């Protein structure tokens, strides 16, 4: 190539490639949600409308389709179109934020804990208190922690769809070989440590007694912080609880079991996740969410057991998280959307979800089917835990302090910084962030 054409080619590629990282923000001012008439009456059966329903889990799509069929028996002229966006890499939330900026949020969508306040407090969602006052949905039908999760500034924004709590899974074979006891629901942290240590000592290098996923709090330190007598965030979502003595006990728990060799190191747990250690038979006990029941059972069959979390200084509480069905503030079909969300909050959809066995439905009394879905494994513990569980910690900008957790805590778990110091630093940063909300 001659010099001139070559240089312009190189320059063009430089420009083209160099700017891939720029960001386009769709801007539009957010306006207040149209306040709905407080009195709700179900629309006529002849209601004709088309609404969109955004979900992110392909495994749950068949159940969602069945639920829509059930809804169409009541409202045959309302078409519900499922919009599936996988959640991988945050794609679902990036898309929802962008759609909301353009006032194109799907009429009805799945919501989760970390995002509910962000959307509700920015006027992107329609409150559904009218459904409650009209008696269409009853708050007492769901675990109260879930109703709290979706109540923002005293207004309910969604019907709880499903929930997750955390249990202690164990491998009977490994515990037996190491001469360790099998966990029971009356275990304490000390029982867990003693028996975990037996397993680590018995098998030696590369095999461990107990661990949890320390890349996020839900199945690990959130629970032990509650059990230690602390909390992650105050119930008004304004103050960090990381510097409370009880919370620090809950964080110290993980640093201790790593230091004692009961758990793989922080480095080992970031490169091979706790659930992989357990599934590969190199970890005897793991703290994990109910969603792992099916995969773990597939790996170990009747060698698998699961019990409630062991008791810490204060309690054996688990954190509870669940999805909700919410309505866009800018929906053009509020009648159909309300009717659909009202239906989603009822018992028939809950039973269909229980039947599919993918998630635990939020509707009380519909979960027994799920609890008995695996023969020889009593899953009732997850339901019992839900009754006293603490809501998943959230605020208006949850992901901002989630990032701080990821930045600060690993060094504390690894023993590189004292837990109390890290906890205080995190509390300070988190409080500064919460002050912005």
């Amino acid at each position, binding site marked *: 190539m001659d010099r001139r054409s070559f240089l312009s080619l190189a320059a063009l590629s430089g420009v*083209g490639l*160099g*700017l891939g990282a720029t960001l386009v923000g769709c*801007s*539009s001012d957010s306006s207040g949600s149209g306040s709905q008439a407080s009195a709700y009456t179900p629309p006529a059966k002849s209601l004709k409308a088309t609404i969109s329903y955004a979900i992110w889990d392909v495994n749950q799509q068949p159940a969602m389709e069945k639920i829509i069929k059930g809804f169409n028996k009541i409202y045959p002229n309302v078409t519900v179109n499922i919009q599936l966006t996988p959640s991988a890499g945050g794609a679902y939330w990036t898309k929802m934020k962008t759609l909301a900026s353009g006032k194109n949020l799907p009429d009805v969508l799945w919501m989760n804990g970390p995002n509910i306040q962000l959307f509700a407090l920015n006027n992107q969602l329609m409150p559904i208190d009218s459904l409650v006052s009209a008696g269409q949905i009853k708050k007492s039908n769901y675990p109260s922690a879930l109703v709290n999760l979706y109540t923002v500034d005293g207004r309910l924004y969604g019907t709880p769809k499903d929930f997750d709590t955390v249990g202690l899974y164990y491998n009977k074979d490994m515990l037996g070989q190491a001469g360790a006891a099998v966990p029971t629901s009356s275990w304490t942290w000390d029982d867990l440590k003693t028996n975990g240590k037996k397993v680590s000592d018995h098998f030696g290098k590369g095999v461990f007694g107990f661990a949890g996923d320390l890349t*996020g709090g839900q199945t690990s330190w959130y629970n032990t912080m509650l059990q230690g007598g602390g909390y992650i965030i105050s119930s008004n979502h304004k103050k960090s609880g990381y510097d409370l003595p009880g919370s620090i006990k809950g964080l110290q728990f993980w640093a201790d079991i790593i230091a004692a060799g009961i758990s793989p190191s922080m*480095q080992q747990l970031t*490169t091979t996740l706790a659930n992989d250690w357990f599934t590969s038979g190199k970890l005897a006990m793991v703290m994990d969410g109910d969603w792992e029941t099916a995969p773990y059972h597939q790996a170990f069959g009747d060698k698998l057991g699961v019990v409630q979390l062991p008791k810490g200084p204060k309690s054996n509480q688990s954190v509870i998280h669940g999805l909700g069905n919410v309505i866009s503030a800018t929906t053009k079909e509020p009648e159909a959307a309300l009717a659909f969300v009202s239906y989603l909050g009822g018992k028939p959809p809950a039973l269909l979800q229980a039947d599919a066995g993918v998630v635990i439905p939020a509707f009380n009394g519909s979960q027994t089917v799920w609890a008995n879905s695996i023969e020889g494994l009593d899953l009732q513990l997850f339901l019992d835990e839900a009754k006293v569980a603490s809501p998943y910690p959230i605020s208006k900008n949850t*992901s901002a302090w989630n990032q701080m*957790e990821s930045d600060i805590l690993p060094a504390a778990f690894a023993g590189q910084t004292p837990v109390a110091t890290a906890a205080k630093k995190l509390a300070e940063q988190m409080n500064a962030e919460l002050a912005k909300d």
Partner: protein
Amino acid sequence: MSASTAETSTVGTAGPGTAKASRPRRRGLRPDGPWPWIFVLPTVLGVAVFYLWPILKTFYLSFTTVGVFGGSTFTGLANYLTMFSDPQIPQSILNTAIYTVIVMLGIPIAVGLASLIERPGMRFRGLYRTLYFIPYVTMPAAVGIVWRLIFNGDFGPINWFLSLFGIAGPYWLATPGFALVAVSIVGLWMSLGFNLIIISAGLREIPADLYEAAQVDGASRFRQFRSITVPLLTPSIFFVSIITVVNGFQLFDLLYVMLGKSNLAMPQTQSLVYIFYNEAFLQNNQGYASAIGILILVIIAALTAVQFRLQRKWVNYV
């Protein structure tokens, strides 16, 4: 070039009486009306809509605080002031620079491999080119997952291999320093295919008679490589190094996939684009993220400009 020669000759030979005859020729030289513009319009529009507009918009947003659901308030230089006092930024510039330098070591490797593959009489040339090119066209996310396993501290083949010699390998992806080296090695491996193709093309443009002449003069194979191949390859090498620097400063996906969340080594490994992603899409801080985006743009533009300056000293154009 040929057109201007034609004109000179026309003017030279045309007498006053043949002015009319020259007119058709001259018309051929005039701009062709709107057609060229219509033909390049799709590209120009594409560049304008997908590159220029976002750059301008990002530039504007970098002076604002952006709401999660749109709406921005002008806050002047606040984002830039935050950026200059953010300790993550200098560390991540250093991380990104180290990554880029290591990936650039792939250029001499590509030159060596290309001259082996393009050797006269080489068999299965197409096969080798394809093999080296496959990593380049594979999704970085997929590549990242595979390498994450290869570098695994407990069960990875690299540490297994080291253990054969009694070496206890590190937790590559969770130890500061090692993590950046591991990511850089994968980056180098991925860029090799592209570099190889460009350099192979450059090799094939070198006239064979130069080598024949050198042979007649008794130059050794190595001497030929040093005095003919390398100097005549410099335009291709220059091109590849521009692209490598530009790509290097956009390190994101490999890092994201290979290191994962809550990684102890992240502060010593994270790139500028990684921080940009965190701020824009996780922390809902798009104004600040835009400022970081502008910083990335300025750094890449500066490095490219410097390279264009320096190339006068070492690049030979035929």
